[in-house]
């Protein structure tokens, strides 16, 4: 059976509880793993307000689907749902949410770690710090 995939790249806040609540019940799969990446309030030692994410979205979608293809070849994963938020994101808010559903735990952990590692290698998304004071911000 084909791996179910759901990819959302958007500037809306990520409502993790809503994504969790929307999971389809599947009694053939024993393991659900969810990872949330949260924007931290420091970057390179400096306190920041948050991060501003940008993306070459069409390519990001293409690259995510290539990763999903390989994930499906490598592990018996029944579902992957991934949400990446773009635009300004305040520290403490979620920039990435990914869920992997598999028959067993080992597969879910291995596939999710691999997916995030690969995402950080090939998916065209970038971030820049949002300085605490607007006075210290500026181009260049």
């Amino acid at each position: 059976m084909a791996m179910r995939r759901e990819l959302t790249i958007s500037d809306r806040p990520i409502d993790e509880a809503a994504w969790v609540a929307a999971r389809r019940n599947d009694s053939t799969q024993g393991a659900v793993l969810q990872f949330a990446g949260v924007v931290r309030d420091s970057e390179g030692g400096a306190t920041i307000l948050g991060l501003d994410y940008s993306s070459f979205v069409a390519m990001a979608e293409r690259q995510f689907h290539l990763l999903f293809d390989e994930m499906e070849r490598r592990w018996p994963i029944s579902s992957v749902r991934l949400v990446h938020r773009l635009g300004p994101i305040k520290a403490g808010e979620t920039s990435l949410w990914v869920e992997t559903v598999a028959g067993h735990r080992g597969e879910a952990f291995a596939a999710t770690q691999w997916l995030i590692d690969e995402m950080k290698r090939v998916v065209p998304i970038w971030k820049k710090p949002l300085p605490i004071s607007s006075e210290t911000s500026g181009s260049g």
Partner: protein
Amino acid sequence: MKIPVQLWSYFTELAGTSQVELELPPGAKIDDLLTLLYQRHPRLGAMRNSTLVAVGVDYQGSSYVLQEGDEVSLFPPVQGG
């Protein structure tokens, strides 16, 4: 042939523009495109070793032979997550 080159992330700031168009001879490779581009935008050339190159929405290496209609993208290492 005219090849549009889209710049992403801080490459836009380094070049002072998000898109440039380069005139290249038939059979030109990405390597040739980069050489020409870096003559015009030396601040981009300084990033050469950490530059990723795509044609359309797929990554391509420096020996890729460009064709009419290709859209090239250049960007720094990605940082999703």
